[in-house]
């Protein structure tokens, strides 16, 4: 990943920190090159954002397969439609908005197709974060399943705000831009979402 970024942005010495957070200028440069049809720039953008896009999709859609499909779909769409980005906000904010909106649309379509609650992805359980004792691991898996079930039961806008905040650690200002509301509204929405999730987790425990 870093070698590609170094190649694309030779002026900036890239280390892990820089690669994790592109500056506004670097981001703009990559987007302009993508708009001009530069596939290397697109590759750098994908490498930089794939983890974030995938995890947002995973948080909202709930399965690895759906998240992977969604991430691919988003980047393919991006290649064709990157001209729609008008540099009025950070590219990352724009991309988050696209991903969350598309995920919510897909979820809505799925809901219409099936009345059952979303299936738990048993075939590919959550990857363990660290080495644990079997007992702890079972407990953790159980907690995750409860959390996942609670997340699927949450209202779409609550799930969106929680995933963006807790998984992606977006600031309140970034959240306001992605969701399209005021910072004050983000504050209250986040509280409502956390409260609703807590009630669901307690209900399923």
């Amino acid at each position: 990943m870093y070698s590609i970024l170094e190649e694309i942005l030779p002026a900036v010495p890239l280390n892990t920190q820089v690669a994790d957070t592109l500056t506004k200028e670097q981001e703009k440069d990559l987007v302009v090159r993508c708009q001009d049809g530069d596939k290397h720039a697109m590759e750098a953008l994908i490498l930089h954002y794939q983890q974030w896009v995938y995890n947002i999709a995973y948080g909202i859609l709930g399965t690895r397969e759906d998240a992977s499909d969604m991430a691919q779909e988003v980047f393919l769409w991006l290649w064709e439609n990157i001209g729609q980005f008008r540099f009025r906000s950070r590219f990352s904010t724009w991309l988050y908005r696209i991903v969350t909106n598309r995920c919510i649309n897909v979820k809505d379509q799925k809901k219409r197709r099936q009345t059952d609650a979303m299936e738990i992805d048993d075939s590919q359980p959550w990857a363990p974060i660290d080495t644990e004792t079997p007992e702890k691991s079972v407990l953790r898996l159980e907690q995750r399943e409860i959390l996942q079930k609670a997340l699927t039961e949450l209202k779409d806008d609550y799930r969106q705000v929680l995933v963006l905040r807790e998984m992606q650690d977006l600031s309140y200002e970034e959240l306001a831009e992605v969701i399209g509301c005021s910072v004050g509204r983000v504050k209250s929405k986040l509280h409502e979402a956390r409260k609703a999730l807590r009630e669901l987790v307690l209900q399923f425990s």
Partner: protein
Amino acid sequence: MSHNRIQKQLSAYLDDQLSPESRARVETHLSSCDECVEMLSDFQRNRQSIGALRHEAPPIAELVLPQLPDRGPVRRSFLPSIEEIRQWIFRPVMGGTFAVVSACLLFALVYFNLTPTSDDSLDLYLSEHTQYSVYYSTQSDGATDSIDSNGIPSATNVEDDTNFFLGVYLGD
């Protein structure tokens, strides 16, 4: 501050989004309220659990890059997309403002379309009448003689006024 108001601030407290004063108030309340402590602890635990859902993505770039078609520069859009317009309009504040402005414009449109436009002949009359009044008051040797105590012109003057207007208006 009441228990409910403090409770509403727990989320912002967790995210370190409170002013030092509000933070101190919440902490004081937490020292004596088990319910809020429990809620905060649940918020914290759920936050960690959601954070733990993060994991390594599959090699998306490897899957996507071979599918990207070659293309030249794309057309850059200077107009907002439908999605952006939709999001802008449906913001609560913007939505309300948009509704009020639309209602005002609609009202103005209906009102001014239904109200007759000003009559040119009346305008002409008024302007000529003003000129005539000035002329009359300077020419007559006593304008006050022709106005009664209530400030209303005498019948003779009104008649003269009308004749003069007709003369001007009909082009005599």
